[in-house]
């Protein structure tokens, strides 16, 4: 369904992505793990072209693009079929929870206000924020902000949802409420890509794990293959350090 090939990206002289290949099937829940700074976030952002690779190709069902020849319509088509949940939430600060979730439906999808509101209220209920509907971001906790971000992503009914470390800027006691919502989302069958440092969580919700290291995919397999019998010393070392940290 989604296939990235030979993605290369550099920021200045630093080569961040060094020929990444990744393919995702419909219904997959793929977790991307790896040391800090290896380009996991950057890779996710290449999919919706928030990060602009120097070369490589993407194909998303029938949409195809070569990053050396960026194509506005292809980028827009991909953006309309994906949604992203950000590490820093990035909830629109000038809008209430309800407006945040409704706005893309009204502005981008040109739905009527009534229809957008109905969909928005449904997704807000799903993430348990009904009582906070009319609150502004400045009045919400981190966990509530991230659940707003998830509701906004779900409301656009994306084919693929991209989670970029959705819990890593949360206070420890708020992580649980967000993981619960993500688990509910991923088990509903929507294709998901999740960058995370929550190893136990990745293991429990994913059907595939991708281990990234130094700008390439260093291992790719089922949770059992990756966690129980790591194929490379780098992976084993990484898993060890993550577990000892937790």
């Amino acid at each position, binding site marked *: 369904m989604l296939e990235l090939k030979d993605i290369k990206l550099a920021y200045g002289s630093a080569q961040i992505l060094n020929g990444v290949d990744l393919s995702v099937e419909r219904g997959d829940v793929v977790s991307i793990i790896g040391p800090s700074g290896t380009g996991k976030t950057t890779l996710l952002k290449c999919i919706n072209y928030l990060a602009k690779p120097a070369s490589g190709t993407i194909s998303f069902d029938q949409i195809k693009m070569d990053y050396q020849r960026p194509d506005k319509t292809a980028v827009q088509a991909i953006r309309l079929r994906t949604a992203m949940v*950000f590490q820093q939430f990035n909830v629109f600060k000038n809008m209430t929870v309800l407006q945040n979730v409704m706005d893309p439906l009204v502005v981008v999808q040109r739905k009527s206000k009534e229809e957008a509101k109905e969909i928005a209220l449904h997704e807000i209920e799903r993430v348990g924020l009904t009582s906070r509907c009319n609150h502004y971001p400045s009045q919400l906790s981190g966990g509530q902000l991230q659940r707003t971000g998830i509701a906004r992503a779900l409301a656009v009914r994306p084919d693929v949802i991209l989670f970029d470390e959705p819990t890593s800027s949360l206070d420890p006691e708020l992580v649980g409420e967000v993981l619960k919502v993500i688990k509910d989302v991923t088990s509903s069958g929507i294709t998901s890509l999740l960058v995370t440092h929550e190893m136990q969580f990745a293991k429990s919700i994913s059907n595939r794990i991708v281990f990234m290291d130094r700008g390439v995919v260093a291992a790719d397999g089922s949770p059992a293959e990756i966690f129980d019998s790591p194929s490379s010393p780098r992976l084993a070392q990484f898993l060890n350090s993550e577990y000892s940290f937790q």
Partner: protein
Amino acid sequence: MDVSAMIPELLSALPLTLAITFTAMVAGFCLALVASTLRIRRVPVISNLVDIYVSYARSVPVVLQLFVAFYGLPLLVALFGAADFFSPNVAAMVGLSLYHGGYLSEVMRPAYLAVDRGQHDAADSLGYTFRQKIFRIVGPQAIHIGLPGYGNSIIYLIHNVALVMYIGAADVMATAHLIMERDYNQYQFETYLVLAVIYSVLCLIAWLVIRFFELRSPMQAPEAKATTQIRHALISNA
């Protein structure tokens, strides 16, 4: 001639002062919008020229900018073979518009840049067009950030309108001097006092309008009642 006759005479010059202020406010705002856009979206050569304009408007004393406008603009139009249509009033409007535009662009540009990068990312990722993103997300947040600076720039503009008498525009300040000369400098203190009150009222009105928009902004916590906030702000300002 007594003090009470002097007040209406001073006020008769107020429309011109206001006309110059409003012209500079509107024209300066448009200039600032264009200048900020060009400085953010770096167009080669043009953006550099705009940089020079902004640094001129911000670093040259406003009196000097008025002289430059008054003596320079006729030369400029003569170059193009047009007749000189620059009265002191028009020169004052043009000079202050240029000053205010340059000054204001250094309020707008930082306000735009202060909007979190993540807000752009979120809007882009959801498929907002550039215009939709600016009008619905980034613009409103930049306005919220920029409003206090905008209020200051308006107050500086009002103060600087008092300088137009140097190029011979008959605003309230110039009128005050006329009155004093004619009356053998009898009521200097009173005249200046009335002038001070006029400027204070103008600035207070400007400040209240800006404050109203600040409090109306959705990024302001809605439970904070606008009226009590204005009262508090007035007290702390006094």
